[in-house]
């Protein structure tokens, strides 16, 4: 079970011949992920970690049946890599790359609406379904199979929380990083919906941060969910963001602070944990009820 991927998911790694691509291909294989192909334009024909490399995603898909892609290509080529994956029929595209221009991402997201591909990220750690498959860069050792869905805008903070859950014997149905960029492919609500529908998931930990309104937007959905959601918002001690001129103020009108988010969540009756260890406590409380 779990969401989005399972143990039979066939994966292509875009940018497999780069340093990060190579390293994490090995990590994913060690985890048990079925990496069936790599892509680096111009390097078709070689092998990396015993995985065949192709010139294009289309070729990789035709030859191996891959349906999920994970992207490690540098930011200036990453938008094109997403376009290529979508045009080649990839169903789930996890883009790890950090630093993609936001204008590129607006075009990408607009284009993806015309396709049936889902984008996770960019600037995200990917998704791990313990005991089944891992797409991305979360450390292999931190996961434990179980019934908590974890979804987060952050990378390393997700590891911290998943690690703490596991060390406290609380397993995860899946851990998902949706990415920290202002414009991204998959929202909190998308993942909450999947956890709501996944029989293995009993409760969800949602980790938000300052900036944007992604957390506030999820409130209505969370209230309708049958499963408990524990939230945690970081950035309480952050200084007021660098001003974005009047336009930022007009658009956001003061939203985006941790205090504002926590207030909105609590007013809606949603549990807000105060630290990673508090998440653990809150989940333990759920079990007692």
């Amino acid at each position, binding site marked *: 079970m779990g969401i989005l991927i399972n143990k039979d998911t066939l994966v292509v790694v875009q940018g497999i011949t780069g340093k990060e691509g190579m390293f994490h291909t090995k990590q994913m294989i060690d985890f048990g992920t079925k990496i069936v192909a790599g892509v680096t334009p111009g390097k078709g024909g070689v092998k990396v970690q015993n995985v065949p490399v192709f010139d294009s995603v289309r070729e990789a898909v035709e030859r191996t049946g891959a349906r999920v892609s994970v992207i490690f290509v540098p930011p200036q080529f990453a938008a094109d890599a997403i376009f290529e994956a979508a045009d080649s029929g990839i169903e789930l595209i996890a883009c790890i790359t950090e630093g993609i221009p*936001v204008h590129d991402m607006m075009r990408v997201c607009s284009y993806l609406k015309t396709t049936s591909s889902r984008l996770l990220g960019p600037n995200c750690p990917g998704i791990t379904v313990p005991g089944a498959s891992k797409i991305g860069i979360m*450390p292999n050792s931190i996961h434990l199979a179980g019934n908590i869905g974890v979804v987060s805008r952050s990378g*390393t903070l997700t590891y*911290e929380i998943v690690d703490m859950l596991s060390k406290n014997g609380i397993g995860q149905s899946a851990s998902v990083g949706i990415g920290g960029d202002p*414009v991204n492919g998959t929202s909190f609500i998308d993942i909450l919906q999947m956890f709501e529908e996944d029989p293995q998931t009993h409760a969800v930990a949602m980790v938000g941060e300052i900036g944007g309104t992604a957390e506030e937007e999820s409130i209505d959905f969370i209230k309708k969910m049958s499963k408990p959601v524990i939230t945690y918002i970081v*950035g*309480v001690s952050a200084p007021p963001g660098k001003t*974005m001129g009047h336009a*930022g103020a007009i658009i956001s009108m003061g939203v985006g602070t941790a205090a504002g988010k926590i207030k909105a969540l609590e007013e809606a009756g949603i549990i807000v944990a105060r630290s*990673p260890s508090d998440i653990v406590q809150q989940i333990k409380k759920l079990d007692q009820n």
Partner: protein
Amino acid sequence: MKLYEHTAKEIFKKFDIPIPKSILALDVNSAVDAAKQMGDAVLKAQVLTGGRGKAGGIAVVKSTTEAKQNAQRILAMEIKGFPVKKLLVEEYRQPLKEMYLGITIDRQAKCPVIMASSSGGIDIEEVARNSPEKIMKIHIHPLAGLQDHQARTIANSLDRNKSREMIDIIRKLYRLFIENDCQLVEINPLAETESGIIALDGKMIIDDNAMFRHALKEEVSDSLEEVAKKNGMSYVGLDGDIGCIVNGAGLAMATLDMVTQYGGRPANFMDVRAGASAEQVKAALSIVSSNVNVKAIIFNIFGGMTKCDEAARGIIEKIPELKKPLIVRLSGTNEKEGRAMLEKHGIHMATSTEEAAKGVVELGNLN
């Protein structure tokens, strides 16, 4: 990257958006010379922050004496912590009407949004708060781009009688926004004057991630923020005494929150980003420890892309010259190797962010 008004206006000029005649002056004499050429002139402090008008950083001058007095005064100012080093000397254009025109990115809608108000000027934020209906917002499809009917609607909302002139400016500003990878471009006020519509101020923020396709040079600066940026890291100075080095913005914020919860006051936010090298770790330690207020440093890595042994190598190489107490937390990729290396050097270690935060506050109190 935020641009100075004068840089933004140079770009406006390239895109044929009307701006007043102007000269950039770095000292009083050249400001006075420039003002002489303009007749009635405006001296404007060039600083990368808002509110300079209210702070007295703008002056209309009608004589050489006035020009000299005001240039001296403004060049001696510091506005919200930014010393004034440059003056933009512009010909004075009497605004008959002040409007607002800006383009930014709507994260939620994932597209550019054009904002316009016929009530522009310094109080635009108040207008936005109290009379939001006075600000028109038009979302632009990222692939289809600005449509003529959208430009027309915005133009009509600003001034139906100057529709054609306005449409032209809106189109050019949108093109500028796209071609420069802007996060923000703003004209406030966009002024109606006797000789036509003109951009009296200009603000631009360019996406740092897109700098690779633009030839813009950043202003030379030796702030810690800039040094960090040059090393591929992100640093924000704060007013506490606990130095913080973390990989990942989310974990960094959580770390600051924890330090605060345990009674400490962070001296900075620092994200060394994913996949930091030993060299970057050393640079991060140098930057954070160079702040004299720092009493103790928390170094918190949960490695995914970042490898713990690589981070440990950087720390160990830096240790000899580091004068401040340090607590290190290493988890994730190559954790065992990294921890083993540090243990050999007797460095304080923690196993979670919370433990490390608690530890660094204690170290700080001892110091």
